[in-house]
């Protein structure tokens, strides 16, 4: 990987980690290394009393590569394993408080698409599917979306299919607010009832470049900050958690496939929900 990819990944991981607070139970999937790295980083630094459920393992005390290797690799480094149905119950009753999702498309209201491009009967692209992407925006108190590559075609005015819906249902009653934040390799964008607002741009990224790479309208206030990257403590923790830079895997350029030849708006690695299996 390039140094630039790793630097961008570290900003994303730092921002995502700061969404995690003491008391949170975060559900993350083995197919989303950036989100796993963020959860491990938060526990190592700003949120030692947060809990993380990774691929069924509770609070694994191991480096990123070991955690991603699955249950046998973390044996002896976890207090135990949670069955998938139990983890779904944790989400439904909001004992689980936060998940990170990586969709194919996000629109200006915070709707997520992991399903397809084009009509259901004859889609131009059918993605592998979103697992719980359709479910958790209406279940959890907080859902944060992330995109390893901020490109116009991933950020259209309106998603091709609403797999997971932005807020707007009977949300207040259930304390679920849909996707409230999007973290990309360029910027941090917040969603509320008024739409999308540019919260910050990453170091070295111009506001104009973000707007140019975004298909939907973003409100830009006077207070757009530069995203704070990892501080010294966080950098030290990342070096311990992931000395080999596994976290940057999702930012790497990928080989072309039939689908991307046809103009798929994502890389071949499928959009990921939080609970998919390891391999």
């Amino acid at each position: 990987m390039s140094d630039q990819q790793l630097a961008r990944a570290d900003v994303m991981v730092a921002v995502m980690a700061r969404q995690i607070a003491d008391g949170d139970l975060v559900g993350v999937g083995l197919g989303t290394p950036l989100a796993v790295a963020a959860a491990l980083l938060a526990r190592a630094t700003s949120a030692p009393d947060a809990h993380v459920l990774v691929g069924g393992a509770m609070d694994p005390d191991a480096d990123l590569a070991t955690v991603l290797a699955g249950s046998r690799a973390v044996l002896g480094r976890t207090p135990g394993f949670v069955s998938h149905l139990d983890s779904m119950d944790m989400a439904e009753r909001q004992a689980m408080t936060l998940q990170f999702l990586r969709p194919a498309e996000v629109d200006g209201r915070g709707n997520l698409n992991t399903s397809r491009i084009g009509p259901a009967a004859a889609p131009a692209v059918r993605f592998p599917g979103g697992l719980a992407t359709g479910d958790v925006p209406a279940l959890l108190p907080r859902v944060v979306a992330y995109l390893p590559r901020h490109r116009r075609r991933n950020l259209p005015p309106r998603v091709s299919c609403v797999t997971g819906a932005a807020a707007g249902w009977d949300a207040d009653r259930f304390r679920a607010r849909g996707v409230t934040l999007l973290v990309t390799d360029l910027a941090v964008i917040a969603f509320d009832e008024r739409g999308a607002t540019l919260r910050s741009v990453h170091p070295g990224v111009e506001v104009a470049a973000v707007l140019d790479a975004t298909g939907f309208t973003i409100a830009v206030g006077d207070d757009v900050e530069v995203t704070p990257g990892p501080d010294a403590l966080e950098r030290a923790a990342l070096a311990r958690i992931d000395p080999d830079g596994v976290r940057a895997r999702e930012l790497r350029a990928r080989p072309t496939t039939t689908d991307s030849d046809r103009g798929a708006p994502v890389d071949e690695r499928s959009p990921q929900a939080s609970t998919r299996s390891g391999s």
Partner: protein
Amino acid sequence: MTALADLDTIAGGVASGSCVYLGGAVLRRKPLAFVRALVAAGVRDLDVVTFTGSLDVELLLAGDAVRSISSAYVGLGSVGFAPRFSAAARAGTVRDVEHTEWTLLGRLRAAAMGVPFLPTRAGAGSEVVDALGFERVRDPYSGASYLALPPLRPDVAVLHAWRASPAGDVQLPWPPEHLWDVDVLAARAAERVVVTVEEVVPEATVAAAPELTRLFGFEVDAVVETPGGAWPTASPPVHDTDEAAVAAYAASGGDLDALQRTAAR
């Protein structure tokens, strides 16, 4: 009652047009030997249900055995898209019923629990969930509205597991595989249960490690000793995913020769 059975006999006994649940998760524990036997037996028009599909769906599509696919994910994990599924969904040659985790597993849970429906908050506002056409129900206590998921009872669930006794007590390894419990859920939702295993072991071996038993003989209809029956997907604790074979299959755009076991493998 469990019968130790022959793969081709059991697969050939699945009627065309059946609803078949396939166990495993993406590239792990997929009952691929059974799937091949279904194709070889000429079974057609299956309504395939699988929580997360991969080469199982690919082989059935290649064998022209599928009428519909109901799943929350069909792909090859980190390897990429499932080429035949992607093509079939685009061309509309198979009925592609996209589910979410909650809609698919909630339906199986309702069946396994024996209740008429399962209410959930999940999926509000989702076009994918709306397209499934399920009703909503009003909570008589709070007045709130919930999605009401009806039971899904597959005609047969097929799982690949580590080992079982001749009586049909099925054991899974420790530490637990991620999503192992979804296989058990599907078995308890289905009318009939077929388990292919790496090894049939004596009852005494099972009894010596009862904490590993996840399904019991009374709820398993057939056990088929099928070593390597999940290859190239993982079959813990015996072997991991053969990533090279899966990558070769993906790179070829769906060449079944890539899924032939050779002497080199």
